[in-house]
């Protein structure tokens, strides 16, 4: 994210390359450290160097980088850098302006700070999984790991807040990020049901709960001709307009039963609706949606100003005209593969400053010479020696 905003980000990898290079998917399915699409997607806009921090020489070089940096972002287990003599206190002595962001599953200190976790443990620890999946079957995570980008994005917030304080005071600080804590926001306010009313929100499969004080649950996912639609019987102004528009659309195809046509939507109160009423409404709607394609639904939703979207696949995301009209996609050259690759564009558009992908992810040690030689002033022989000794 800092790179997207124009920062000069140097990725420091262990000699041989970062373990994330082993994560798929891979370019043309070829398992190779220079072909990980996971790596490509989350490391563009950076330059890359290799460095063995476990060697004294490596730490000496790292101190040099620390002295000239505005930020250090690290995700080692708590205490690892301290054991190497490169912990926050040391970095702060070298460069008192430095913002050091430390990212771990549970935080730098505390009873579970030493616990190991990958995405699924973070999703379990934050409670997210207790809200996903069918009742009576195991709690689920989102199949594609989400806690990593979530934690990265929230860590960027904390990093920039510390950066803003430094702009006023001149002093750096440490930002201690917990992935578990970041994920607490992902599933919104489910926990407040317990807090306020001692009601425990739980996984409800394809249904939405918590919208009516009667405990009624509403269907969210409806089979259509070529997949699924996300449509919910909502209340409120937009909900009533949507329900009305849907009935008109159904009626146009002769599929709206009389009771739906007669329904007084202005008097419809979602917060007090009963399960019986919801079930009665959902039955003809389900029959109607089975006759509709995702594309047709999306077009009608836009045209009729209804709430709802198709359950899109990555393929359909690439067909969305909105993203082309906004010139969202970015093509970056990959000369090492003799090709160019399409990336998602920036996370936001700033009217005065650029934001987005502009440089592909680095190859292993791609900028060793540029940075160690050019910018840190080492001679060609020194760089060669570090290389032959395996420090870089």
């Amino acid at each position: 994210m800092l790179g997207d905003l124009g920062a000069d980000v140097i990725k420091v990898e262990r000699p041989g390359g970062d373990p994330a290079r082993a994560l798929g998917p891979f370019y043309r399915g070829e398992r190779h450290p220079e072909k990980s699409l996971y790596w490509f997607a989350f490391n563009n806009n950076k330059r890359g160097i290799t460095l063995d921090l476990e060697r004294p020489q490596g730490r000496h070089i790292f101190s040099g980088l620390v002295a000239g940096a505005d930020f250090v972002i690290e995700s080692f287990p708590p205490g690892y850098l301290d054991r190497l003599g490169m912990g926050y206190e040391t970095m702060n002595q070298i460069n008192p302006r430095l913002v050091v962001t430390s990212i771990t599953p549970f935080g730098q200190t505390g009873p579970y700070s030493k616990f190991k976790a990958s995405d699924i443990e973070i999703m379990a620890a934050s409670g997210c999984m207790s809200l996903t999946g069918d009742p009576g079957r195991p709690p689920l995570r989102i199949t594609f790991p989400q806690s990593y980008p979530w934690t990265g994005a929230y860590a960027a917030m904390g990093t920039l807040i510390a950066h803003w304080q430094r702009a006023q005071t001149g002093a750096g600080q440490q930002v201690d990020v917990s992935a578990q804590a970041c994920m607490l926001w992902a599933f919104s306010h489910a926990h407040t049901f317990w807090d306020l009313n001692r009601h425990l929100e739980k996984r409800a499969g394809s249904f939405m709960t918590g919208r009516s004080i009667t405990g009624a649950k509403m269907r969210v996912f409806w089979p259509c001709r070529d997949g699924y639609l996300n449509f919910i019987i909502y209340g409120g102004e937009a909900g009533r307009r949507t329900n009305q528009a849907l009935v008109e659309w159904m009626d146009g195809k002769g599929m709206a039963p009389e009771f739906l046509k007669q329904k007084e939507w202005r008097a419809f109160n979602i917060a007090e609706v009963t399960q019986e009423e919801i079930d009665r409404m959902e039955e003809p709607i389900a029959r109607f949606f089975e006759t509709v394609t995702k594309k047709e639904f999306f077009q009608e939703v836009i045209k009729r100003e209804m709430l709802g979207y198709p359950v899109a696949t990555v393929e359909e995301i690439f067909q969305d005209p909105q993203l082309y009209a906004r010139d969202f996609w970015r093509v970056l050259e990959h000369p090492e593969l003799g090709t160019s690759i399409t990336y998602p564009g920036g996370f936001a558009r700033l009217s005065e400053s650029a934001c987005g992908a502009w440089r592909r992810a680095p190859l292993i040690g791609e900028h060793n010479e540029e940075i160690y030689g050019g910018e840190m002033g080492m001679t060609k022989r020194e760089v060669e020696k570090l290389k032959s000794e395996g420090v870089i």
Partner: protein
Amino acid sequence: MQALKGLKVVEFAAFAAGPVVGKHLADYGATVVHLESRVRPDGFRTHYPPYKDNIHGLNRSGLFALCNSQKMAINLNLKKAPAATDLAKKIVAWADVVIENFSPGTMDRLGLGHETLKKVKPEIIMLSSSNMGQNGPHAEHAGFGSQLSSLSGFTNLTGYPDGPPQILYGPYIDYIAVAYGVAAIIAALDYKKRTGKGQQIDLAQYESGLQFVAPLLLDYKINGKVAMRNANRDPHAAPHGAYPCKGEDSWCVLSVFSEAEWQALCRELGNPAWTSEPRFASHDARKTNEDELDKRIAEWTSQVAAHEVMEKLQRAGVRSHVVQTMKDIYSDPQLQHRGQWTELEHPEIGKMHYQRPPYILSKSPAGPERRDPLLGEHNAHFYREILGLTQNEYDALVKDGVID
């Protein structure tokens, strides 16, 4: 001192995508004003349970409380032009940052578009957070984050391969956009500090969300592969899932990525004979026979309490965690150690757990220290003390229904 002390923010915003950006700024000391009116209160006050004791009320919403702690709430009926527009401009002149999440075009129609606000205050930073962005054929389509999470691919990736997509609780994608919104605002503040220039940030929640599935977008574009939901499975690990434990609806997750972890897991299981069978002898073999593997693991976990599974496996160096419920996260010792929740008293809700930031800054204390505001609670204080209206001006605006 708090990192964002002195920063002044006004929200022409409701629900989550705008106000939670303000909440994160307020947690580090920014002065944040949440603008509503009695005619049009924040939708979270009016339409979204839970309400305390299931009794509906404008000041009884847990969701509003969560998203608006530490802020001031003022009323301004923007429909009462031109007096309301003039007053809104005065507030903008006071502020450093404007956050709005109306449908694109609404601020223009209210006479408060970016071009106008720039004339009021050239260095203003304006975050416009919307579903699909400020331009393009779908720009004006209003929608909720709970459904946008489907358009952006997330729900297609949740559930069993042979079943329907599954719901992600709440407006999942809104809180992704929140992180990007906060980052963009601070980047814009930094840019202003260096150049003197303000700017508008056009944040499409849809485009923010797509960042979180970026590798899968590349996989489709390059390899033609359409990613699908696959429950708790992971290509790099086996076993990898949630397993039933002793007790009702009690679960523990565990994951094994390396051979060393597999050996450690087998030791904790007591090295039963099945663990040395050829069909579980390597990662690839375990992936091939994963259903059978899951059954064996579940046989063991069902005899043990979830916390015991977690403690035992973590001690052995195997990743594992209890699947915590929405009740457990309040008493989780690690979150308590970090001071993740702060209990504040609210006049209608009573004691409530307000949420503190997920990052701890070593030199800046974090809030919230104040509960969320009641509707219009800070009218007099903000308009009189901070904006400097005279009593007569204030009374007239109240009487005319502008401050209402």
